């Protein structure tokens, strides 16, 4: 695999993805669209929290929920951004077969297609965090943020999510029906098992181990800790582990899932080629 070809595949896919995602309307409406959806999701949780705690937003529980939900926007955006490209190109634009015969690397192309949603997701995360800090007393002190941990965790997490997206893209390639739901269903399931907005200890005992195997669990914990150190005390699920230990676990699980993703994508890609599924249009 030549680096120049990979870079070209990635760059053009990112540009194409951005055009598809953003040029259906004018920039203002696009900005509103990118912001309203995640803010509404956050507002549902804020109101639920406010109703039960009678507006006590000073507790450590609140930033735990709020930050977990804010960063979870990346999970849905990046994962489905990569896998949705298969549905979009194959079913909607009917161009996937042309991509396959073009001089590009398909996995790199698909990862590049996820960039657009990463960008819109980043805007949404930023707006959600800003709204929390400015209006809801989410106590993020910029001077006290552990920036190194934040940046390292963010990059590692995004890479991990992109690889999970590639895994989903592989499965999507060999799925004739409901492929559009795969990303959403996976993101929805991870929301439950990652302790995004509630601690794993709330889950039934028999479900909890699934959460401990999910890299997103550790990633969200690191994002919270990097922004507000003492938020880990809100729920003691991972409180016994230090930042470096959690980072190590995240790195290990990312490598594990990344390898699995490449493996699964290769298998699915071969099956899709053998069964003539690259240009399959189901109109389903």
């Amino acid at each position: 695999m030549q680096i120049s070809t990979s870079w070209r595949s990635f760059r053009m896919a990112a540009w194409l993805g951005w055009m598809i995602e953003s040029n259906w309307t004018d920039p203002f409406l696009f900005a509103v669209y990118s912001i309203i959806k995640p803010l509404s999701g956050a507002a549902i949780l804020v109101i639920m929290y406010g109703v039960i705690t009678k507006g006590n937003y000073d507790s450590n529980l609140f930033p735990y929920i709020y930050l977990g939900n804010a960063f979870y926007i990346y999970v849905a955006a990046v994962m489905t951004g990569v896998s949705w490209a298969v549905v979009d190109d194959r079913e909607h634009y009917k161009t996937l077969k042309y991509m396959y015969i073009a001089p590009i690397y398909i996995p790199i192309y698909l990862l590049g297609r996820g960039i657009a949603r990463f960008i819109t997701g980043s805007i949404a995360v930023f707006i959600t965090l800003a709204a929390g800090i400015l209006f809801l007393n989410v106590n993020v002190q910029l001077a006290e943020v552990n920036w190194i941990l934040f940046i390292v965790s963010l990059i590692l997490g995004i890479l991990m999510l992109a690889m999970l997206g590639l895994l989903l893209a592989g499965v999507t390639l060999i799925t004739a029906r409901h492929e559009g739901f795969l990303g959403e269903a996976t993101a929805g399931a991870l929301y439950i098992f990652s302790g995004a907005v509630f601690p794993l200890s709330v889950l039934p005992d028999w479900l909890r181990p699934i959460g401990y195997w999910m890299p997103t669990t550790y990633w969200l914990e690191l994002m919270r800790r990097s922004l507000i150190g003492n938020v880990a005390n809100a729920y003691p699920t991972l409180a016994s582990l230090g930042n470096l230990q959690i980072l190590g676990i995240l790195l290990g699980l990312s490598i594990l899932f990344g390898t699995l993703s490449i493996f699964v994508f290769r298998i699915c890609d071969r099956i899709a080629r053998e069964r003539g599924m690259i240009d399959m249009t189901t109109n389903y």
Partner: protein
Amino acid sequence: MNPVSAKYSRKDTGWRLFLRTIVARAYPRIIGQQREMSWVIFEVVMPMLAVISYVFVYRALEAPQDYIGFVVMGGAMSAFWLNVLWSMSSQLYWEKETGNLALYIMAPNSMMAILLGMALGGLLATALRAVTVTLLGSFMFGVTYEISSFFQLFSVFMLAMIALYGMGMMMASTFLLFGREAWHVANLAQEPVFLASGFFFPIKFLPFWVAAGASFIPLTLGMDAMRQLIFSGGFQFGLFSVQAEIYALAVMAVVFVASSKFLLAYVEKLAVREGRITESRR
């Protein structure tokens, strides 16, 4: 004339054609679901994921059990909103994309009957999913119900559904004018409506004018009334009295269904004039 020829040479017109069009359009929604049960799994799983998440949030906050019931009910009712968004509002747009819309308009039947058929089929098919979500949620989280008036509950539900699907019919005609943005607009109308209509918390906790504004979405008042009618402590969370909400829903049902007829006629004419019936802006 042999019986087969006799059957197919008879031409239905007027109300008979109208009713047959409704049944014909509702048919694939109901029967199609039986032939492809995997749809049911996904359309139950997706609302259930949201229900499970929000139930665990309430559990983490040690909320009273009534709130768990609110979430289960909200999850079940969200199936109707998603159905109206994706299978009513966007439907004419999808039909345009797949080339069926021109056939609908060419055929000697009423477009209103097609919309009513879509609504009827969607309502019945979604009701099955909503019941499944309710049963699963109630079983998983031990939700109990205490219905104070079956008649009022039935009235609220039916009026809310008629008003909601009437609204869906209005939106369907509007979506006729959309191109690629249809998908995004439908996508955008999910979470904000879940928030404004109080799918997962009592609408009373929103500022009054926000809640009153959101009441133009029939599910807002429908769910508020249903919460009051099926949970023992539900009355303390009501935005308005059940009686007032029934009247408001009845008005909305009439206005939305009637408006959809005029809107459809207007938008169809506009779409034909601007050449958007067969246009597919990808």
